[in-house]
Each structure stands twice: as C-alpha cells, then as structure tokens.
C-alpha cells in the first residue's frame, strides 16, 4: 500500500512540474506592493542624502555606488552600448551590472514587473507608455528632454506631456525595397504612390521571375503595420481615428484591408511558405536578390540585408496610400530607449547615467542603423541615409507613431499575430468574418481592461 502511495506521489510530482511554466513569476501580492512602498519611502530619503553628498563635493563622483541595467540589445549595438557604459563607469566610479537578456528580454521583464523588482535602468523598446509607464520615472524635467526632436516626442510623450524614456534612436517603419530586383524587373519604386501602383509593380516583378513581397504572416506586422493607410490618415478610405480611440469602432471596416491583402495571395506575390517563415528568412532571401519588397518594416531590416550581402542596394519608400491623394506614411517607433525604474534606490546615479548616454549616443545610433533623435548624434546612420533618400523623392511623407501603439489597446499585437496566421491559412469570406470577429472581441476586451487600468 505504502509502495503504491509512493508511486502515485512520484507521478503526482512529475505532473505538477508541468505547471511550473505557468506559475513562475506570478507573484503579485499585497506584500510586494507594501514592500515596494517601503522601499520607495526609504530609498527616497537615502537617495536625497546621497544626492546632497554628490552635490556638496561638486563632482559626479559616485564611487562605491552600483546600478543594474537590463538590455535586449545584441551584436554591434550592444558593443556600442557597452562602450558607453564603460565610459560612464570610469568617469563616475559607478559599478554597472549589465543583464544581457537578448531574446528573453520581454519575458524576463514581464516576470520582473510582476514581482515589482526591476533593474534600475532598462530599455523600453517601444512600450514606454503602453506597458512600462506604471514602473517608470517621469523624465520630462531632464536636460536632454528639451533636445529630443519632434519625431521622438511624438512617440514617447503622453497626453500630460510627460516622457518616461530617453530615446536615443528612432525606428522608422516603411516599405523596404531591393533596388537591384526592381531594376532587373524594370520597376521604378519611387513612382509608387497607391496600393494599385504597388500591385502593378508587383505584377512586373513576378513576371521577371522574382518574388514581389517577402512579408511573413508569422508576425502581427503583416496585418497591423499598414492599417493606418486605410483607417486613420488623411485621404484614407475610412477616417476612423476617433472611434478607434474611444472604443466605439466598428471592425467591419477592417474587411477592406483583408480584401486588399487577399490580392497578394491571389496574385502569387508572396512566398509559398509565408505562413511559416520569419524575419531571418526574409533577410536571407532579400540578400540573395530573390524578392523586391517587404511592407511595414523598420530600417534595421535593410541594415541586416546589406550586412549579409554588401552588394545589394536597398532603399525605403513610404507605405502606400489607400487611394489617390491619401497620405503616404512612415511609422516612427522607439529604437534604443532607456527608462529608470520609479522605485530605484539609485535615482541620482540613474539620471546621471541617462545624461551620459544622451551625450554619448552617437556610437549606439551608428550601430543601430536607425534614425537620430538627439543633437549629440552626428553620425549619419544607414537608416538615416535611407530616410533622407526617401524624403528627396517623397517630400510630403507623413510620419506617425506606429499604428498599433497609437490606436490599439495594449495586448492587441499578439492578437494581430494570431489573426495573421488565420488569414494566411484561409482567405475565404467566412475566414475573414471569423478574423474580424476575433479582432473585435479581443479589442473590446482589451479596451475595457485598459480603461480599468486608467
């Protein structure tokens, strides 16, 4: 009997281990909140004391102090960031512990938010307002805040005029173009204005034996990034901004977008395996001069393509207008962006660190290949060069925050990801209705949750 019980217990334990996945990092409790409040109270006074010591000595010597920084950066951008950190350490005597989370960054940060135990400084990667705001320090009073250009402020400033992150580079999202493929197919990408023009160009590219569009439907971007073209911007088919933002929007209008995207499938513009590939595959194929466009992607894509094959000529054009006279636009999102945990015990050190980053961000900007946002950034990155080239052809390009970040409640990105997969699998009318219903339900749910959160 005892033996049986022992065996049953062993099986029970094995089964319990399956739950570890869902149970980790879910420690939201009154205790943690209370502990955080205690920490805040004590850290406030400690920080004030330490700060006054620093000021009394009239230097930025923070010897003996330590801060923890978390980053998702990798490769050259991380190397550039490390150089900035090393410079700060040697100048101030601060010891920095750098957590390099890489691809696990978002998941790890979610766990750390749940336990209300965040790094002193961390990257906000496009989510300073929607996801991280509750945990961030208002930085609008910092010196560098006045230096941020309008493109950056349009993305990181909330309705009260507060900003919570130092955005050293911006990500510019448009349509990536492989100029070599276009040239071989006799297509002038600079002449593309509307989606009809775009499809005409795609027909020519396909006839020349290339794949016109490398968009992949494993990403939400395939369904979400270009939506402003039909729904939100000047001259768009619908002007639904207000309704989208106040939660009264009728998702039936979304069918226009699905109907258009269906032409990509019907006309054979996409890769056969567009439902299972990812960005790495798209980059590799573009570097092999196999495909022409990818719609709704940041300039880091072109940077990666050229890194793989320096002989490829890449460019960027805006996302098309849904009809003649409509706005051709590019989305601007947070690139390398750094915020400070509101409950940090080292507030003065963290602010000094961000000041240092703001003054020395040029290396990060150059490595990231994105667009500059601060006057200290003098290197014209690859992304910036492409943007300037684009503006010389399209002087009236319209810039806005990334569509989902501006118009959708938090949590919709993953909903779009699922919907993209559904659409890729089946573009029938029934499927479209199912997708719209799925988007509507989740939007309403998440909108209500966002309202509750305030």
């Amino acid at each position, binding site marked *: 009997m005892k033996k*049986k019980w022992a*065996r*049953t217990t062993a*099986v*029970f*334990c*094995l*089964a*319990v*281990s*399956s*739950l*570890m*996945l*869902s*149970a*980790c*990092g*879910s*420690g*939201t409790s009154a205790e*943690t*909140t209370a502990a955080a409040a205690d920490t805040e109270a004590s850290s406030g006074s400690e920080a004030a004391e330490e700060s006054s010591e620093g000021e009394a000595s009239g230097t930025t010597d923070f010897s003996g102090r330590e801060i923890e920084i978390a980053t998702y950066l990798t490769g050259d951008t991380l190397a550039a960031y490390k150089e900035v950190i090393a410079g700060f350490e040697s100048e101030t005597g601060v010891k920095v512990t750098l957590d390099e989370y890489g691809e696990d960054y*978002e*998941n790890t*940060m*979610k*766990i750390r*938010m*749940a336990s*209300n135990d965040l790094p002193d400084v961390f990257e906000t990667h496009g989510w300073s307002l929607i*996801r991280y705001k*509750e945990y961030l320090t208002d930085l609008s009073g910092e010196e560098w805040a006045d230096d941020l250009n309008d493109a950056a402020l349009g993305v990181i400033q909330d309705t009260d005029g507060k900003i919570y992150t130092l955005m050293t580079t911006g990500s510019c999202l448009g349509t990536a173009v492989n100029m070599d493929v276009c040239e071989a197919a006799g297509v002038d990408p600079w002449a593309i204005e509307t989606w009809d023009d775009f499809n005409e160009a795609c027909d020519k590219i396909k006839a020349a034996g290339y794949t016109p569009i490398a968009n992949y439907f*494993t990403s939400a971007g395939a369904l979400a990034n270009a939506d402003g073209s039909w729904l939100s911007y000047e001259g768009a088919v619908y002007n639904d901004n207000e309704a989208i933002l106040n939660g009264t929007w009728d998702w039936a209008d979304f069918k226009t977008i699905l109907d258009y995207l269906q032409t990509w499938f019907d006309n054979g513009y996409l*890769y*056969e*395996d567009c*439902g*299972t*590939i*990812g960005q790495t*595959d798209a980059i590799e*194929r573009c570097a092999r001069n196999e495909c022409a466009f990818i719609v709704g992607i940041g300039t880091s894509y072109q940077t990666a393509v050229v890194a793989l094959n320096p002989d490829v000529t890449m460019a960027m054009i805006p996302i098309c207008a849904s009809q003649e006279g409509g706005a051709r636009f590019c989305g601007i999102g947070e690139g390398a962006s750094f915020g400070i945990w509101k409950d940090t015990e080292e507030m003065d050190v963290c602010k000094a660190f961000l000041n240092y980053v703001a003054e020395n961000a040029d290396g990060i900007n150059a490595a990231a290949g994105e667009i500059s946002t601060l006057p200290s950034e003098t290197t014209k990155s690859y992304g910036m060069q492409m943007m300037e080239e684009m503006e010389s052809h399209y002087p009236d390009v319209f810039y806005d925050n990334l569509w989902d970040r501006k118009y959708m409640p*938090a*949590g919709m990105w*993953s*909903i779009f*990801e*699922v919907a993209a*997969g*559904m659409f*890729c*699998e089946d573009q029938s009318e029934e499927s479209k209705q199912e997708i719209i219903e799925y988007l509507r339900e989740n939007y309403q749910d998440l909108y209500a*949750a966002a309202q*509750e*959160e305030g």
Partner: protein
Amino acid sequence: MDKRKKGILLSLSIPAFLLIFIFMIVPLGNALRVSFFKWNGFSQNMRFIGLENYLSLFSDKVFWRSTANTFVYGFGSTLLQNIFGLSAALFVNKQFKGRNFVRLILYMPIMISGVIMGAIQYYIFSYDNGVLNNFLNLFGIEDIYWMKSGVGSVLIITLINSWQAMGFCMLIYLAGLQNIPKMYQEAARLDGASKWQAFFKVDIPLLMPAITTAVITNLIGGFKLYDIIVTLTNGGPNRKSLSLSYYISLLYFNDEKAGYSSAVGIALFVIIFIVAVPINRYLRSKEVEF
C-alpha cells in the same frame, strides 16, 4: 525498525520534501490562485473572475487542438521511442565489432538540447533551400512544403522527438536486458521455444520494470514537449502544432493572458495525472519478480 532509525530516515527526506514544496507545491498553489483572475502577467492589478477562465477552455479551439497535439506527442512519441529504443537495445546487446561506437552514435541525439535539435531540423525540413528538399531535387522531385499543414508539422515534430529520445529508451532497455539472467532464455530454448517465443514469453515479462520506467518517462516527456516546437515550427502554421506546454507559455508571455494560461496549466496537470497514474498502475501490475 526502531523509532530512532525511523527519525533519521525521515529527517534525510526533509530536503527533498522541502524542494518539492518550494518548486512544485507552491507554484501549483499560485497557478491555481492566478487561474481565478484576469491578469496580464505583469501589472500590479488583478481582477477576480471566478471560474470564467475555466469556462473559456470549452470554447477555445486552440486549446482543444493543442490538447489533441499533446496526446499525439505523448502517445505517438512513447510508442515510437519504445519500439525504436527496444530494437536498438536488442541490436547493441549483441557482441560485434564496433558495438560501443554504435551505442554512442545511437545515444548521441539525446545529448543535444531540444532547442538546438529543432533549429537543426528547421534547416532540414525548410521549404526553401531545406536540406531534404535539396536532396530530393537531385532526383528531379519538386520542393515539398513539409510544414504547410498542422498535421504535417505535428508528425514531423513527433518523429524528431521520438528519434532524439530513442537513445534514452535504448539505455533503459539495455540495462534491463543485461539484468535478465541467461538461464531463463536457455531453459526456454531447451523446452523448444523459438527465438520470438522466448523473446515475448521470457524477455518481455522480465523487462516490465524497464518498460514501466521508459513508458511513463516518455509519456510525461511527450506531454510536456516544448523546446523542439519552439525552434522548429514556433507552434505554426497558425498555432496548429502547439503542445499545451507551449500554448501555456504563449498565453502567459505573448498574449498577456496569465490567468487563462494558469487555467490551461491546471488542465494540463489534470490530464497528465489522469493519464499517467492508471498507466503506471497497470504496467506495475504486469511486473514479475525474478
């Protein structure tokens, strides 16, 4: 056993119980608690919604599809792993030159992490420039989109998982075979049993403890399959090759539905418990002592 000895033995098990309590019982309790809330997984605000997450399970197509996949991964992998593993064990149990090398080769895949195995297989089964398609092209066969459908992806994942874990099964069966005294086989053969009869009537019953261990371990491993799926199909196409373990992770971290994810976790726990306990009990009842 005197009381003092009992006390010592009991105290020796305290660290194990403590670890099980901290890393299994506490998370289980926490998952159960969270499953009654609507929570995005990181906010300090949680809203109690009672059984709503559990009721949502019934109308969630992805949950049922993932459950079906989980059964395929669990039972399919167990079946294949045990067939391959036992066959391999019988083969390498014989005396031949290079036997140790063959054992090593057969055991090697299990030493590779599931994540890396999935990534390697991705490049083999890829539609565009995949190793397998390139090989088939040599014979004039057109590219095949192996992972176009959910069924194709699930079968490929099951096969790869079975092949990878086969070495583990082989090791268990090899140990089991080497523990069977030769006299039973010899006695059976003297009594006129054929090779197959001796195998099924003598070896298999005496291998039951090894079979129990292999089946239960493989079954639970298959039910919890996660890493290969992440790098091979990422749950696609259209979330059709998800296992429940991966679905739990996606719900929690990607979809920001931590409460619902916990409810799915509890469901997985119940499924594993309901399936593993009777199978374990049945297999144990078939064991013989020698």
